[in-house]
């Protein structure tokens, strides 16, 4: 196996509040191989965006990394001083955020913003930087790039702005891009264009992507592997086809059934009753146990002991159903 580009080990993100310490991301570990697209899905509040923000160290205070390690290219980056981290952002890790209007500075032309990034990170002359900026804009499919480079963000439509943001993320040829809901603010036809573009560029540049989204369809089309998050923990992680078609964790099973699919006629969607617990009221044991329909198959362990990720064939699921001691007696789940 190749050495992973990014390794996250036992990451825990906490928010100290007046009412006590809230753990938003609780002891998660995963890795991304070079050139791999890892999708992270989950419902709002599951901790997906925080995970992305922690890697690039843009956590809003009072949120902080309480423990764990983030290793990029064999180098630990979670404890670097601020200035060192600044050099990594943009150069080694690029970022694409949900709202393309707020991720661009409205007071500068897009050309200035892209050349600024290039000049900060790469040893090139301003002329070369401008030429590279035009090349980048051409690459992301902005027509008449030589002219458009002097335009301001408000002169672009939503889809075009997101293309500019992508060119900005790619400007210094980073090895990893963190894309946090890159298509959520866009219409479906534009979303399809942006996904296709992102996939093509990452393949050409060999860039790894951490793709954070709540849209399982986007993950299915784009990612190689997917991590499903629930209440700050990874419920299941594995190859995307396995997780979608043969989900193992009861939460993933419910989630897949809850998504209405074209061409599949069902009278009722599978519904997971209740909602995700609040951060100050995460149940003991497995965080999903109050909503889980299969706790009776395991017993008291679900409510008392927290499950870690366990191998279940091709995917890893954090569920006691797959504990080796019980696996012998339990039949495998068929979905």
């Amino acid at each position: 196996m190749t050495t992973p580009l990014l390794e996250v080990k036992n990451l825990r993100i906490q928010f100290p509040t007046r009412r006590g310490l809230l753990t938003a991301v609780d002891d998660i570990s995963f890795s991304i191989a070079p050139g791999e697209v890892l999708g992270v899905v989950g419902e709002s509040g599951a901790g997906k965006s925080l995970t992305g923000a922690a890697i690039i160290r843009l956590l809003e205070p009072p949120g902080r990394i309480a423990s764990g390690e983030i290793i990029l290219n064999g180098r630990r980056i979670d404890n670097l001083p601020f200035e060192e981290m600044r050099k990594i952002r943009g150069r080694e890790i690029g970022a694409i955020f949900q709202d393309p209007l707020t991720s661009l500075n409205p007071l500068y032309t897009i050309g200035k913003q892209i050349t600024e990034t290039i000049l900060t990170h790469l040893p090139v002359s301003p002329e070369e930087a401008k030429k590279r900026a035009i090349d980048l804009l051409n690459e992301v499919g902005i027509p008449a790039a030589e002219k458009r480079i002097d335009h301001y963000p408000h002169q672009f439509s939503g889809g075009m702005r997101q293309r500019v943001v992508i060119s900005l993320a790619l400007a210094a040829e980073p090895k990893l891009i963190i894309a946090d809901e890159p298509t959520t603010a866009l219409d479906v036809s534009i979303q399809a264009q942006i996904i296709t573009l992102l996939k093509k560029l990452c393949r050409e540049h060999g860039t790894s992507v951490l793709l954070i989204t709540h849209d399982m369809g986007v993950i299915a089309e784009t990612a190689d592997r997917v991590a499903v998050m629930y209440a700050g923990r990874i419920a299941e992680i594995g190859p995307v086809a396995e997780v979608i078609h043969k989900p193992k964790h009861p939460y993933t099973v419910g989630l897949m059934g809850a998504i209405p699919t074209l061409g599949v006629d069902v009278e009722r969607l599978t519904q997971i009753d209740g909602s995700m617990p609040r951060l100050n009221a995460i149940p003991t044991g497995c965080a999903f146990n109050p909503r889980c329909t299969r706790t009776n198959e395991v017993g008291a362990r679900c409510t008392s002991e927290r499950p870690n990720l366990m191998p279940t064939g091709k995917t890893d699921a954090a569920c006691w159903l797959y504990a080796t001691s019980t696996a012998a007696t339990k039949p495998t789940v068929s979905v």
Partner: protein
Amino acid sequence: MINSGKSGNPTNQVLLEVRDLARDFDVSKPWLNRVIDGQPRTILKAVDGLSFAIKRGETLSLVGESGCGKSTIARVVCGLYAPSRGSVIFDGVDMAKASTQEQQQLRKRFQMIFQDPYASLNPRWRVGKIVAEPIIAHGIMTDPTQIKQRVDELLTQVGLSPLDQEKFPHEFSGGQRQRISIARALSSNPEFLVCDEPTSALDVSVQAQILNLMKDLQRQYGLTYLFISHNLAVVSHISDRVGVMYLGRLVEVADTKKIFNRPLHPYTQMLLSAIPDLKMTGKQRTPVAGEVPNPLNPPTGCTFHPRCPYANDRCKTESPKMLTAADGGAVACHAVEEKRIPIELVA
């Protein structure tokens, strides 16, 4: 056709009919700026000549990308905007021509559910008061204990507890708030609900709960829905018929099965192929080109022609009319009429 006064006529199959409906918005600059720059008024045609009918107990969905006029339609149908042209006919009564008294009687019979459950509930009112408002406003009940009992019933029906009456909206999650909105909409015993993106602010698992609830309620009370959404998968799940909108016009209306299996209009085909799907079949996608044009300055002829792979000269000059096929589906496209499009099967 217009049999005013005979409301609630069960023989009337069509509950709501919209004829040649248009709504313009004046988005001109202030008068002085216009005079100085010598500019004419700028009119945005949000909805331009829309006609459709919804049968009793049916769900008609309108889909389209942002800015195509879906929400404007919902608001015109509910009477929140006055139409600039055309008419809304509810149960045989033309809303514009009805007397104030008649209108009040009709209003009771339709309600609306909005997209954002955070903005559509008054944060200073207790849930009991929010849900009871339509009952009091329409004078359906006057006795406070009776009203309270009815609110209890409604809350139970949408899966909340009667004890929730005393709470404020901020104490609930997004999905629960949308349940409160639904309870409020049901409180005047309506027959017709206009749902403007009721689940787009919700997570998938919660969305499934709300969609199931809406289907259950429809079966129980024989409700008729006008469902507005941009999510085609949700639409395919909930509706009987689907209307696809593009730049203020309907381009295709057909039964749900038909529109998803055999879309006729090039725009419908493009929309369907653009949805990322879970099946990962790696199917060939119709290349999605371009973006929605500026509605202030829509293209001539068929408004879709700059993005359409089948456009010819006629499409650039002549606006296509809605042509109804034998099976009840309707499509507005010259290329379909002239059979220039190879009919593809999107399975």
